[in-house]
């Protein structure tokens, strides 16, 4: 609403400026119909906007002027000097009011009434007082700028950053004086701040995108006969204007799919025991230099097996391969182009319409899209896009003696031939086998025209569409954040490059476009990469689907998918601390909550629910990065601790969580300290007992068992309602009564809200049990 208001104010000011000439001209010649029309249009526009923005005073003024001018236009009322003055006074008053709103002042409305009355009587009661320029000054707290100007500023600042880098390089080579260094530092800081500020001018809130969604969802739901509740979150997140435009279509498409194929018709939802209305959640948040947008629904979910079967039918993958795919990879097939044309798949299994386009659109802007779905429970699509188009994380490599940059988002991993990867020739074609996966092989030096291939024995595994290919390079260097610019048309026309950049070395570098490289190498279709290599079984390292995530302490860690039961989002304030340990209630169960860093106390918390088959625990993370098949960690440590070892993923080190250690820790948490006495809570194990009493008892240092838990030790204490059955046990019994006055607190029962008495009893029995 604030945005709309400032937009309105700016627009009205602009219109006022624009018609000021007309006003003067009209005053000189009131018969001039064109001028009259221009002023009529102005008051009409203002009236329309005011009604919408709930500005009754402006609405009244503009309405009065519009009425009078309409009469004049219709020839029902003669134009006289009084009327002209009256209208002009109203126009000026509108200007004053707009200024006042903009600067947050208030203006007496007596004047308004006088002006309106004068218009209606057809005679200005007195010559209108026109306080020229009294309030207009200093009110414009926002101005409107052409986007090109902002773009020019942005590119100017980018140039400045590069010039600063060059200066830094030059300075390193000469004898320096402290004052020069200090001045240069100052310059660096200023340039950095300037860049941030200018970048922000290109930012827009996602609200811009979200604003249209409720209407779209409502219309779609009505059209398709669904009941949909839309929840949106994160509209305040800011994103580069171009990025917002670039994700508009993909997001629209995803929402359309969610309603069309995800959320079931009300009758089917009822039959499945779900609420009639489906929930569609659109959430956005910033995570590092990425924006994560999630669209989740509680609909039918996507049946991964059906998708795979359909992919086989469509000839996208061989049947033998389909059976070997993990559930994640099967789901991933919805992004395959061939599947999208198959209408039938949308009817039997959910999604698949145009998702290839969604992925392609996102990849074009350096983004990724992932799908996660549970049949019957729902589907979540995660879009990850960079904050801006101009600065891109990239890996630099050498191919045939020349350095190139590769967008990091496209890189899956980097292996050396002979260590994790090899190249094989079958029937004249060449393929790369990376950790047991076969994929198309591209010799970088052949594509990029280098004279000698040299010993290009580094394979950069690049993601493209749903598949991967291996690009052979001579050396892999650094990860860098590069300022990327569009290259000249004849450079772009090669299709091989995504742009140019000027790194600190001062030599221009080309940013490779993985799709273009693949196309130039004649790879038309990328087969899924999970195909085991022939004869590779012996050498193959067992690959296990592994979930990569950014941990709360900012470190990238990994955990095997097999022990991840699910990924949950909970409110941070639902974490409970009892006896010094964090726990969280999920689905009625209280799980131990482990984390690598202090938990945020506000906002949402993302959890991995890990299960070992019998017990579960929650592990708090920042966000999920990816799921990739990975071998065992290198450098496994024997020492007990949270980390089992280190994996190399895309050239980065990722720590593998030690699942054994965490479950041991969780078990210790779940049961508390093994020496903590057990308190049996009688009565129905829900509601008051579980939610109100149990935390108190746990906080007092007890472990808690409920009436229906199997007991394999004698509790130190049993607490039960004053009325109702108790569990037969040797433990002393404390009864709690609901009526404060019905008994004696020192006797056989305690009032259940007499905290002090309950704690005293707990302490007494705790001491006795420990003795």
């Amino acid at each position, binding site marked *: 609403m604030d945005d709309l208001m400032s937009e309105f104010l700016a627009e009205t000011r602009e219109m006022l400026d624009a018609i000021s000439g007309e006003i003067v001209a009209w005053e000189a010649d009131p018969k001039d119909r064109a001028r009259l029309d221009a002023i009529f249009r102005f008051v009409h526009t203002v009236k329309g906007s005011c009604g919408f923005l709930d500005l009754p005073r402006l609405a009244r003024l503009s309405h009065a002027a519009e009425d009078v001018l309409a009469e004049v236009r219709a020839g029902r009322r003669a134009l006289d000097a009084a009327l002209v003055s009256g209208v002009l006074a109203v126009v000026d008053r509108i200007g004053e009011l707009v200024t006042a709103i903009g600067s947050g002042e208030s203006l007496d409305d007596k004047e308004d009434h006088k002006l309106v009355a004068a218009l209606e009587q057809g005679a200005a009661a007195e010559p209108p007082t026109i306080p020229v320029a009294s309030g207009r000054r200093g009110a414009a707290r926002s101005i409107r700028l052409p986007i090109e100007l902002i773009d020019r500023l942005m590119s100017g600042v*980018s140039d400045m950053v590069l010039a600063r*880098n060059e200066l830094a390089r030059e300075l390193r080579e000469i004898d320096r004086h402290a004052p020069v260094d200090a001045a240069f530092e100052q310059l660096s800081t200023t340039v950095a701040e300037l860049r941030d500020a200018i970048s922000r001018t290109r930012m827009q809130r996602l609200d811009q995108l979200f604003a249209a969604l409720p209407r779209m969802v409502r219309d779609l739901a009505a059209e398709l006969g669904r009941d949909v509740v839309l929840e949106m979150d994160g509209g305040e997140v800011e994103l580069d204007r171009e990025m917002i435009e670039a994700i508009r279509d993909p997001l629209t498409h995803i929402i359309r799919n969610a309603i069309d194929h995800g959320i079931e018709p009300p009758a089917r939802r009822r039959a499945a025991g779900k609420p009639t209305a489906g929930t569609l959640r659109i959430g956005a948040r910033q995570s590092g230099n990425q924006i994560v947008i999630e669209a989740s629904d509680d609909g039918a979910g996507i049946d991964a097996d059906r998708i795979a079967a359909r992919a086989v039918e469509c000839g996208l993958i061989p049947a033998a391969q389909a059976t070997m795919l993990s559930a994640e990879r099967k789901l991933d097939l919805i992004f395959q182009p061939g599947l999208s044309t198959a209408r039938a798949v949308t009817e039997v299994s959910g999604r698949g319409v145009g998702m290839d386009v969604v992925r392609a659109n996102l990849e074009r802007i350096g983004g990724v899209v992932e799908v996660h779905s549970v049949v019957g429970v729902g589907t979540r699509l995660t879009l990850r896009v960079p904050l801006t188009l101009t600065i891109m994380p990239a890996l630099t490599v050498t191919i045939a003696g020349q350095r190139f940059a590769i967008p990091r988002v496209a890189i899956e991993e980097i292996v050396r031939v002979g260590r994790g990867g090899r190249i094989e020739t079958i029937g004249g074609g060449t393929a790369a086998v990376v950790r047991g996966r076969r994929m198309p092989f591209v010799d970088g030096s052949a594509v*990029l025209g280098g004279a000698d291939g040299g010993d290009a024995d580094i394979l950069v595994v690049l993601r493209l569409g749903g598949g991967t290919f291996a690009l052979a390079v001579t050396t892999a260097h650094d990860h860098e954040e590069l300022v990327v610019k569009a290259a000249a048309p*004849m*450079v772009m026309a*090669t*299709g091989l490059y995504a742009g*140019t950049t*000027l790194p600190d070395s001062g030599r221009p570098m080309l940013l490779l476009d993985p799709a273009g490289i693949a196309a130039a190498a004649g790879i038309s279709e990328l087969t899924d990469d999970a195909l085991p290599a022939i004869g590779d079984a012996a050498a193959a390292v067992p690959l296990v689907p592994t979930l990569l995530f950014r941990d709360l302490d900012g470190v990238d860690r990994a955990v095997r998918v097999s022990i991840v039961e699910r990924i949950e989002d909970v409110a941070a304030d639902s974490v409970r601390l009892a006896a010094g340990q964090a726990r969280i209630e999920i689905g009625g169960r209280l799980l131990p909550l482990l984390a690598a860093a202090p938990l945020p106390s506000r906002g949402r918390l993302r959890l991995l629910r890990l299960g070992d088959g019998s017990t579960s625990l929650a592990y708090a993370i920042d966000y999920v990065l990816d799921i990739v098949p990975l071998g065992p960690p290198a450098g496994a440590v024997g020492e007990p601790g949270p980390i089992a070892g280190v994996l190399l993923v895309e050239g980065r080190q990722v720590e593998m969580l030690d699942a054994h250690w965490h479950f041991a820790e969780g078990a210790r948490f779940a049961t508390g300290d093994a020496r903590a006495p057990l308190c049996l809570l009688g009565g129905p194990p829900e509601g008051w007992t579980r939610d109100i009493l149990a935390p108190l008892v746990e906080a007092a240092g007890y472990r808690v068992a409920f009436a229906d838990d199997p007991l394999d030790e004698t509790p130190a204490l049993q607490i039960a309602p004053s009325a109702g059955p108790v569990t037969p046990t040797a433990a002393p019994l404390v009864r709690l009564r609901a009526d404060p006055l019905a008994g004696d607190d020192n006797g056989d029962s305690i009032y259940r809200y007499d905290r002090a008495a309950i704690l005293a009893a707990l302490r007494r029995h705790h001491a006795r049990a420990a003795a």
Partner: protein
Amino acid sequence: MSAAGLHLIVRLAGERIALPAAEIDSVVEIDLLTPVPGTPQHVAGLAALRSRVLTVIDGRAALGLPPGGVPPAAEAVMLSHEGHCYALLVEAVEDAVEIASPVEPLRAAPAAAWARVTRGIVAYAGETMLVIAPGSLVGGPGVHTAEPVNPALTSTA
């Protein structure tokens, strides 16, 4: 007929030619080229000028002649064309001069290499020179720019 105005006289493919000063930015020295594999022959590579990346055009190759190569500290004419910065490699940059005589249409057809890029001729210091539109060299021999480079030729053809 008005004066042709300020021109930069350079030597390219053995010819002295005049480039309208209004259409060029400056004269730069090029070293450390980054080759751009896959581009047409007339794209010699990329070079950095301060914080800018220039696309370096081999002037000879742009005329459809064998590329002239890039000698160390090669002289080049920098220009902006359709939003991008280019450096046009020439054999030598001679002088920037004010030409008082007008640009005249070229009555005789020049060699095929020059026809596409010639705007006219101009007389200076007793010599007649081709006036070349530098932007038209950027596209190379295979690409025709929208700019009418030689109205005289097209109208008489």
